[in-house]
């Protein structure tokens, strides 16, 4: 993968589209500092996440980046509420009461508040996806990275979830970078990027 330059401004919402297997999820993981690039820099605000040590990178991710995974990645032995509170448990600076209030508000907005004490295994795919969205938004991250966040949602909840992400991005000046295949919804994003155009590696190999 070779990305010459990519920029996401505060409050900007970007939809990243492209065929399966082209490296969109890897790109998100690079930005989040989960994997490291072989060369180059990735700045979030003033911090180059590629220079951070593992523990510092984890702490940075916890406080600044919200992640929504394609496979939800909820912890099966924790209730929906505990999953939403997970960033607090993992050591984010925000107090429990603040995270819990935000989490409950988000859960209420996404229609999963009645399942606050329910284990994820008892929820539908869509409900799990919404719990994962609430978890990512509960810390009010500077940058929200979402990998197919609406893939398992019905049209109504899809719209609700995306509206919520857009709203929080605008209200709290967050960057929002969403990988999606859902072309019906990408109109609402400020910028739409075809990942194949962003990634120059294939082109360099071309004669």
């Amino acid at each position, binding site marked *: 993968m070779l990305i010459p330059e990519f920029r996401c401004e505060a409050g900007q919402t970007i939809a990243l589209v492209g065929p399966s297997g082209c490296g969109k999820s890897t790109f998100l993981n690079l930005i*989040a500092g*989960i994997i490291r690039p072989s060369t180059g820099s990735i700045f979030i605000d003033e911090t180059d996440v590629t220079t951070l040590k*593992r*523990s510092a990178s*984890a*702490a*940075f*991710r*916890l*406080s600044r*980046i919200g*992640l929504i*995974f394609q496979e939800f*990645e*909820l*912890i*099966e*032995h*924790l209730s929906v509420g*505990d999953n939403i509170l*997970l*960033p*607090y*448990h*993992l*050591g*984010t600076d925000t107090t429990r009461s603040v995270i819990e209030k935000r989490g409950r508000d988000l859960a209420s907005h996404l229609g999963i508040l009645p399942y606050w004490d329910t284990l994820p295994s008892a929820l539908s795919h869509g409900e799990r996806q919404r719990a994962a969205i609430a*978890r990512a938004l509960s810390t009010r991250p500077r940058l929200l990275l979402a990998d197919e966040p609406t893939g398992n949602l019905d049209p109504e909840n899809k719209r609700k979830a995306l509206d919520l992400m857009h709203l929080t991005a605008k209200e709290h000046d967050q960057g929002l970078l969403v990988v999606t295949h859902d072309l019906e919804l990408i109109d609402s994003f400020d910028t739409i990027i075809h990942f194949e155009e962003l990634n120059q590696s294939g082109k360099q190999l071309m004669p």
Partner: protein
Amino acid sequence: MRSSSIVYLSWKALRYRPLRSLLLIGTIALTLYFPRALQEFINRSEEVLSARARSTPLLIGPRGSSIDLTLNALYFTSQELPALRYSSYEALSQKNYGKTIPIYSRFLAGQSPLVGTSLAYFKLRGLTVSTGRTMTRLGDCVIGANLAQNENLQPGDTITSSPENIFDLAGVYPLRMRITGILAPNRTPDDDAIFVDLKSAWIIEGLAHGHEELSRSETLELQRDSKGEFLRANASVIEFNEVTDTNVGDFHFHGDRGNYPLSSVILVPHNQKQRALALAHYGDPVTAEQIVIPAVAVEQLAKTLFATQRLAFTAFTLLGIAALALALMVFLLSFRLREREMLTYSKIGATGRAVACLQGLEVLVIIAAATILAQAGIVLTRSAAQDIFTRLIS
């Protein structure tokens, strides 16, 4: 990551898989428990064996296995020992080496050993009657605290000796004995025993009996034999199977008392010199009796017994290591299955150390719970070891 959060998340993970957690706790607890409990049991048994042996200075009995003789005298085990003649006891008493306490431990009443002895035995063992009084009359008995509690017996109740063979009509005499007292518990085989006077034991042996006085019985026919020398009662003479205040005078002994049987005699020498003399006298192979220092006999027994138990200890230890290895494998497999969960923690922002703490605490909680459980078992075993050992050996 906050310590309280590590505890909370680990606890949630353990609770989510209760069966796995309980199985691991149980396996590790048993692994820790068995070798240590066996060690405790061995140590306690050694103490118990030695203590009772040490409080029995010397033992005189028929020649044969010194260990069988010691176990019979100390634990009332029912080994078939040759009998020691009462005349030997009298001879020993006349030599005045020390205090002599006869023991005749051959019979049972139910599962409880019946011990014919003298009151000096109670003094030797520090036994006191907690309820009732000691035996005063033929057919009286004093019973141990455990027996009284288990069978709900009280002074005034009766207990009947068991025949050795139900078809042996001429053999051991089922004697109904009157319980006059209950001994205070002393956590030794005495707690399960029935103590009677030697003469009562001989009634059970069939050496003495009581029956209706022939001259007074109107229902009996007295027959003169062909030579006209003997009186013979017919079969309807009623033989007493219980000694009462009214029939006690009708009990009488047959034969030469010098030939009456004993199991052994406990000798408490007056002093070191008398002890040496007794050892020298009975150490002579020409004497019909043997002298045993119970502490030495028990030491020999303990060596054999504990060598076997140490083998078991080694086996338990090896099994324990294997079980711990299995438990370790279960942990590793479990963590492997939960790799994705740990990866999620990392992706969200948990440091490697925090993830290690989460996993470590789960292991620690399981090991701690297993250790507490094993320790509780060991404490229980320690407190029960004496009783278990006493029951096992009796």
